[in-house]
């Protein structure tokens, strides 16, 4: 027999596998129906979109036919603070900060797949409140948006920020160590 929505079923498995490989399978257990079925595909994806990041605020604006999801997580907040530290150390303004630019490119790479989907990356290198740096995702109801693509993109974005935080920490630590061990100078700290 032909399987209804086999493509969507495989998308669900693909995302579950990515999260399993990332060590975040608990997100699947908490947000996906256990039964593998096309009928629960969109509920699975909505569950994931709202829970892949630690903080999510969602709102539907009927008047504008638009959904907004505001997503944030310690990996995003920490990344912006670290990128800001790098920028200060090199006297680079936030708008020209190569790491912030790279983050915007990465978000765009995963979310620029539909004219009915838009996003904003709000960067705060000196956050004033928890989850201040965040990504706003706008879904316009004018046409079909594959929520599976969106959910998968957000998983990849999460992993990118997570890796980028580690990368930036290494760069900043190495820089501090280089300052301490300037040639011809005494080592000031261990």
């Amino acid at each position: 027999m032909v399987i209804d929505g086999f493509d969507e079923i495989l998308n669900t498995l693909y995302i579950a596998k990515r999260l399993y490989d990332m060590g975040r399978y608990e997100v699947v257990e908490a947000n996906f129906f256990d039964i593998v079925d096309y009928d629960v595909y969109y509920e699975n994806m909505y569950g994931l979109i709202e829970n892949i990041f630690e903080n999510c605020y969602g709102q539907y604006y009927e008047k504008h036919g638009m959904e907004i999801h505001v997503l944030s997580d310690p990996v995003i907040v920490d990344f912006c603070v670290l990128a800001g530290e790098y920028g200060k150390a090199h006297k680079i303004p936030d708008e020209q900060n190569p790491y912030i630019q790279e983050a915007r490119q990465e978000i765009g790479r995963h979310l620029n797949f539909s004219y009915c989907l838009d996003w904003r990356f709000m960067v705060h290198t000196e956050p004033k409140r928890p989850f201040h740096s965040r990504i706003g995702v706008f879904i316009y109801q004018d046409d079909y948006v594959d929520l599976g693509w969106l959910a998968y993109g957000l998983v990849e974005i999460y992993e990118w920020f997570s890796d980028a935080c580690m990368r930036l920490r290494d760069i900043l630590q190495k820089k501090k160590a280089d300052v301490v061990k300037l040639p011809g100078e005494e080592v000031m700290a261990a």
Partner: protein
Amino acid sequence: MVTVSVKQLVSAIEEADAFKLPDMNRGTRYLYERIYGRLSEGRDVRLSEVDFGSFEADDIDSIRELYSETLEGNVRRADSLAHILQNIPPHTAVSAFV
């Protein structure tokens, strides 16, 4: 008079080039048997029963390709064949002694 041996027919269908499956690696074979196999028989598949260590993400692309290029077509061909067989008009048997 046309006679059909069901055993021979099934065997011929299984051996026909159009229905032959390509070689699969271990991960794709796992997905074929545990996911596609069960769903195509109308049985439930549960995420909690999937062993995510038994396949790679690339194997999901392989089974997707296999489905769109081979399996889906095979199912349609098999359905069509079954439809033809079911609609063969009955042959009136005439006994020689009547």
